[in-house]
């Protein structure tokens, strides 16, 4: 019994890593057998060496901590605005009429094209970078919140109103929990976007940050650092995913669809 539980646990933890590890092994083999030129794609060991170098010099942690600050600030701002807009547009049709088209239009403007304008508005300081992250995070949260709110069971809402719930209680007891599965999908997506946007944001006069690290390495063709930063992003993706899963498992316990989760 105990051992089978343990097997189950390892299975749950290990299986997701099968594919990434297999890829890593294949890659190392390909480089070692010379099938892939190490100039073109450095071996994992070489990438590790670059990582070690960055890490031990303390440079990496500087990059990380500064990016982390930007990411969190941007997420907080963009996430809240997106959430509020999604909420308002999901609940009130006239608001949706007025705002949705404009939001969908802004959403579609690439950050890269927008940079000159962003510099004009915010200068080259932290504001510009945080603004871009916020903008990137805003839309997935907005779209999914809107969708979640729109699909809250109308019968439950009727029930809530009949039972005398005020707007506030209605929101906390019905709108929000009803929309939560969709909102968490938005959060999951936005946590990824948060890091993604940094790579663009940190082309604006940055000399720290992992977006800077990546783009600078690309510019100077330091392939090992480029690949390392890609791995770093991938790990952040995994991290974001774990956070999202954790939130889901905590907040959606009532939902049979989210039960039996590892």
């Amino acid at each position, binding site marked *: 019994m105990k051992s089978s539980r343990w097997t189950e646990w390892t299975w749950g933890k290990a299986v997701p890593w099968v594919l990434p590890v297999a890829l890593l092994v294949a890659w190392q083999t390909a480089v070692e057998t010379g099938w892939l030129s190490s*100039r*073109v794609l450095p071996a994992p060991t070489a990438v590790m060496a670059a990582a070690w170098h960055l890490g031990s010099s303390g440079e990496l942690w500087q990059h990380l901590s500064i990016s982390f600050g930007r990411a969190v600030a941007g997420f907080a701002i963009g996430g809240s605005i997106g959430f509020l807009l999604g909420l308002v547009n999901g609940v009130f049709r006239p608001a949706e009429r007025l705002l949705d088209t404009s939001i969908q239009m802004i959403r579609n403007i690439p950050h890269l094209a927008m*940079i*000159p*304008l962003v*510099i*004009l508005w915010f*200068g*080259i*300081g932290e504001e510009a970078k945080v603004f871009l992250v916020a903008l990137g995070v805003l839309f997935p949260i907005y779209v999914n919140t809107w969708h979640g709110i729109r699909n809250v069971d109308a019968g439950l809402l009727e029930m809530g109103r009949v039972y005398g719930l005020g707007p506030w209680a209605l929101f906390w007891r019905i709108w929000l929990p009803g929309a939560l599965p969709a909102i968490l999908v938005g959060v999951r997506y936005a946590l990824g976007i948060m890091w993604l946007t940094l790579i663009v944001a940190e*082309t*604006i*006069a*940055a*000399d720290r940050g992992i977006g800077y690290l990546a783009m*600078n390495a*690309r*510019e*100077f*063709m*330091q*392939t090992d650092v480029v690949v390392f930063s890609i791995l770093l992003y991938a790990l952040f993706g995994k991290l974001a995913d774990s956070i999202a899963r954790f939130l889901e498992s905590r907040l959606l316990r009532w939902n049979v669809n989210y039960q039996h989760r590892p």
Partner: protein
Amino acid sequence: QKPSPTKKEEGEVIRIGYQKYGTLNMLKARGDLEQRLKQLGYTVQWSLFPGGPQLLEAMNAGSLDFGHTGEAPPVFAQAAGTPLLYVATTPPSPKAEAILVRRDSSIRTVADLKGKKVALNKGSNVHYLLVQALSKAGLTLSDIRPVYLPPADARAAFEQGSVDAWVIWDPFYAAAEQTGKVRVLADGQGLVANREFFFASRSFAQKHADVVHVILEELKKVGQWANRDPKGVATFLAPELGIDEAALEIASKRRTYGLEPITNEVIAQQQTIADQFYQLGLLPKKIDVNEAVWREAK
């Protein structure tokens, strides 16, 4: 020169990368190269790149046979092991890059830049120019506050007042001058060479030396034309770049077109740049430029 068709595979493709502002662009527009290579049984595939680093990136990946950049990108590419070979260069054009300040700025000399924010493209020609200019004024990079921005962003930051000075090259330099709102603090004269370089990938140069020669010949012709007719160059480039013809004429006049071989002097200049970048910590390792120069097997 007679073609010897037996040697060539029929319809082999020569992949050339070019940028909008440079000699290859004009070569492409004139179409002479295609004509000649067609006789030799080749077709040409042109690929446009937004900048030197991207072009060399493609060459590194084996997607390009021939290309051109300024003087800084190949240094980094070589450090990364890109199989490129310097095949030719142009005469120096030191006047084609400069340090700019706003017209009403209180900064009068390079020495006044101390403690000021200076926008520049990291690891580019102007990075080297700035280092040289500062050292002539008795300063180092750590005495100023460099702000690394690509040209378009730098201009926005410069005009918005986020930075005090801007180190930039042509044609952006000329375009900024045209606005009448900038003052030149110093240009590259006496500081840098500022050449354009032509590269072939190592394997291509080995296999198709003849083609390299053909390209160089054609480049030479284009260069001669450009030198004779800077106005024509401006007229040609204006719609391509979307930059004012007058500005382009200025830019065209202050650079020299043409083709020069990679002499030991040129190699030495490139080596100095590489060593400088290495000292600045931009280059991860020392390189020997000499190793990347095309020397035809006799």
